[in-house]
Structures are given as C-alpha cells and as structure tokens.
C-alpha cells in the first residue's frame, strides 16, 4: 500500500527501475540518520516503521505526498512567492505524510566536542528546497534555503545523541537530489566531515496534475512499446 502508487507511476511511465530498486517512503516516521564508525561518518536513511536502514541513503526515495501541497503564506515568502504552490513536509506528524526527522542518536555525545553541523551543499531538481523551524511563539526560523543560493549558513545544528524534526519545503513537483554534509569535532579524530551525501526526494503533484502526468506516461509507454517492436 505504502509505495504502490509510485511504483505504478514508474511502471506506467515506462521508467526503468535501477538494478537495486529504490524503496519509496511515503508515510510514517523516518530519519536522516548520522552515525560515525571507524573514523568515518555514515549518513543514511532510517525507516522507523520497518526498522530498515538505507545506506547509502539513495536506496530510499523520500516522498513528499500530494497532501503536503499548500499555498505559500506571507510568513514563508523567503521560500516561494506568496500565493504560489509550496510543498511542506511538516515537523508535526501528519498521518498521510512522511514524518521525516534528523537523528544523531547513534552518536555517543561524549565522543564529540560541541554540536554537529549538517550543511546543505547542493540541490538538483525542478524547484527550490528549504528547511525551517517554528519557534515557541510561532516565529519562522530559516535553516536552509536554496532560493537565495546555497551558502555556509544553510545548515542545521544538531546535538550528538539527539533527534529533531523540522519543516522541509519544495517549490515544484518532481524528483530532487539534495546534497548534505555532516561535520563536527571528534574528541580523538579532530575535525571530521562526511563529504556531500545525496538524498533522493520525490514531490508528488496534486491529484489532477498527477492524473495528467499518468496520462502522459501512458503515451510515453505506448511510444516506448512501439519503439521496441
């Protein structure tokens, strides 16, 4: 049930699935996990629902469902023009959407001096990507935003041994590859970094656009069939 519709879409559009098929995570709780083993970071996806770890994380496609689509309000104008479509994967759990967190629970706090930084390094996709938090009194705290370029300030500060949730934004439907880099100061290994690690997201359009895409996909499928003959 969880990943059926997207597999169906992939099939109807005639997309070739890679040799190691990706798993689509659509609902439930999953984390972008940061571990550190034998002197190296391990950035992965941890699906809490099936207790599965995807390392490298590209083995999982993090799905931003159609229910995430909203209209950009004034307070989020930094991410997209007010009134335009915006997909928000929220920090508060919504049963029809993926509840994506950031977990450093696999790290031993005493192994680290200070906090970790998870930086945005690249965004490849049809729109912009952003991360923000909502403060105690509702203030919007922008953590990452590719709409104004990607700079050193596009980062999250993560406490070793912790777990947190943020709001993730996307400005257009389609497939995204988001490059993230973890860095911190290890008590024995010193300053260490993961290098850029890619995460795959798919932003699902509204049902009517989805139907249109599927129809287009069927055309593509027919053409593909004909070409094979």
């Amino acid at each position, binding site marked *: 049930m969880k990943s059926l519709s997207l597999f169906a879409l992939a099939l109807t559009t005639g997309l070739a699935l890679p040799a190691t098929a990706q798993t689509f995570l659509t609902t*439930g*709780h999953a984390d972008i996990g940061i571990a550190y083993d034998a002197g190296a970071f391990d950035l992965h996806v941890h699906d809490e*629902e099936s207790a599965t770890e995807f390392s490298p994380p590209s083995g999982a496609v993090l799905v931003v469902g159609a229910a995430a689509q*909203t209209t950009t*309000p004034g*307070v*989020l104008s930094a991410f997209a023009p007010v009134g335009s479509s915006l997909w*928000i994967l*929220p*920090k*508060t*759990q919504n*049963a029809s959407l993926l*509840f994506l967190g950031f977990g450093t*629970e696999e790290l031993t706090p005493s192994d680290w001096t200070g*906090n970790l930084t998870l930086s945005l390094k690249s965004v490849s996709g049809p729109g912009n990507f952003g991360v923000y*938090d*909502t*403060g*105690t*009194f*509702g203030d*919007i705290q922008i953590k990452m935003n590719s709409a104004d370029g990607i700079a050193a300030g596009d980062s999250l500060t993560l*406490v070793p*041994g*912790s*777990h*947190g*949730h943020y*709001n993730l934004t996307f400005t257009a439907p389609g497939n995204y590859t988001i490059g993230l880099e973890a860095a911190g100061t290890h008590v024995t290994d010193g300053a260490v970094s993961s290098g850029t690690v890619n995460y795959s997201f798919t932003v699902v359009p509204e049902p009517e656009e989805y139907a249109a895409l599927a129809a287009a996909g069927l055309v593509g499928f027919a053409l593909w069939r004909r070409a094979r003959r």
Partner: protein
Amino acid sequence: MIRLLLIAVVLVATWMRCAAVPLAERVRLTTEHVDLRIVLAPEGTNLLSLVAHDGDRGTNHSATNFVLVAAESAKLSVPDGFPDLGPAGSDLWVLPASQNPALLYLGISGEGLALSPQRLDLFLRRVDGPGSCVVWQFDGVGGLSISLNTRDGLTEADRFTPAVGGHEHHNWGFSTNGLYTLWFQARSTVGGTNAWSPEVPVLFAVEPVPAVVAGPAVLATSGLEPDGSLRMLLSGTPDATYTVEGSTDLRAWEPIRQVTAGQTPQAVPLPLPAQSPPRFFRAITP
C-alpha cells in the same frame, strides 16, 4: 530554627498501598528526550497506563517514580498577541517543541504498543499546582494549535491524540514556578470499544521550586512489622522532611530516622527493643 512538637496519635489507620514517592527520591528528568508513552497491555487489569520513556537511555519510568523538570532557563515572557498563552509580558516557563539541549525535550508517544488500536487519546483531567498550564504547537505556516489549557477550564477538548505508532512534541508552558501534578487519563479505541486507563499523576517541577514549609505531622501506629518492630504512619506536608525521635521519659529524645512525607501516609518502621520500658515517639521538623 523552629522545632515543632508533634503529638503521636494512636489510631488504626488504613494501610495505604500506593504511597506517592517523595520528590527527593524520584528520578529527575532535566535535559533528556522523554516521551509520556501510552502503554497498552494485551491483557491484565490495567489495560492502559502511562510511563515516561527516556529515549536517551531507552528506559521506562512508572509515573510515580519521576519528576519532569522545567529549569529556570525555561522562563520566557509571553509576547503580544497570544492571549491563550497568557497576558503579554507575563512569565511563562516553556519546555519547547524544538529541542534545546539545556531543557527537557518532552514528547507524547503512541509507539511500541502491543495492540493496534484505531485511536489513542490522552485527556488532561486536572492540575494541582500554583499556576496555569498550557500546551501548544505551531503548524508549518504559523497557526497556533492548543492541545491543553487550564486557563479556560478543562473539558474533553483538553487532550492529545497521538498517532498510533507515532510521537509528537509540543510546547509545555507553566505560568508560575513550583510543583504541578497533571492527572492524565488515556483512552484506546479498539474495534469500536473504548478502554480507559486510571488517572495517572505526572509531576512537574518548575524551577526554582520554593522550599517546602513543613506543617504539623501526625504519627499513627498501624501494627507490627513481621520482625516485631512497630509500624507507624507519618502524615505531613508532602515533600517536607521530618525527624522521628524516640524517648522513654518524654525528656531525653534521641533521633531514630528521617522521613519525607508524601501525598499519602508514609510507613515508618520503628525498632522496639525487647524488655523496653514504654517508649514515646514524635516527629519534628529539622
């Protein structure tokens, strides 16, 4: 130093089986990621209960054994425009929905259930404390959503509805420092049938907690322990510590043990030496 002389009243008291654990003996949860977790047992008399799940250590504490601490640094000032949270400029100690390493990170959890109910609810039934308590979230676009608020009284609407198998974080606000007991009751709905937990008291310490001013205590005999010592029950101001002393002549008193009073009478075993002359006992404040 004030010494209160307290009278030992001899009466047969009902043995209180579930004495509340004094503050000093509870596990202090101060900066951990802790969830109030609904436990749904597949069988047994208490189908539903509530524990504190310490996510940092992977341990569960029963509700009577912990205190959730809001440190002094949690104290904020309510901004303009949030009348549901308090008057603008008033104090509010907040355990935030977004983790602050210096503060308790408190969640509500419907994870790890032995059964799969269609729905879980956690109702706030009453609050004993010096101020008000309000619990809220902001949605992604800045909309305020209040789960619990004692400022306008408690109704069936003062509840959490945690996702089955999920967990959530809220902002927990307290208007005054001191000790608060929040009484929660969980409900699970399985196959259209509701099951209810007992009302579970959850203790919060909003710091600084004012020192407990010990009022008069009462010592009552409640029979003999199996080893022949006298079992007495001490009732006093909860969390105040008393010294129980003994004497044979009502002039020379010797300290026997210290007892911290709870919400219900605390059992105090007192040795009775063989061939002892008549002994008197009293409980005094330090």
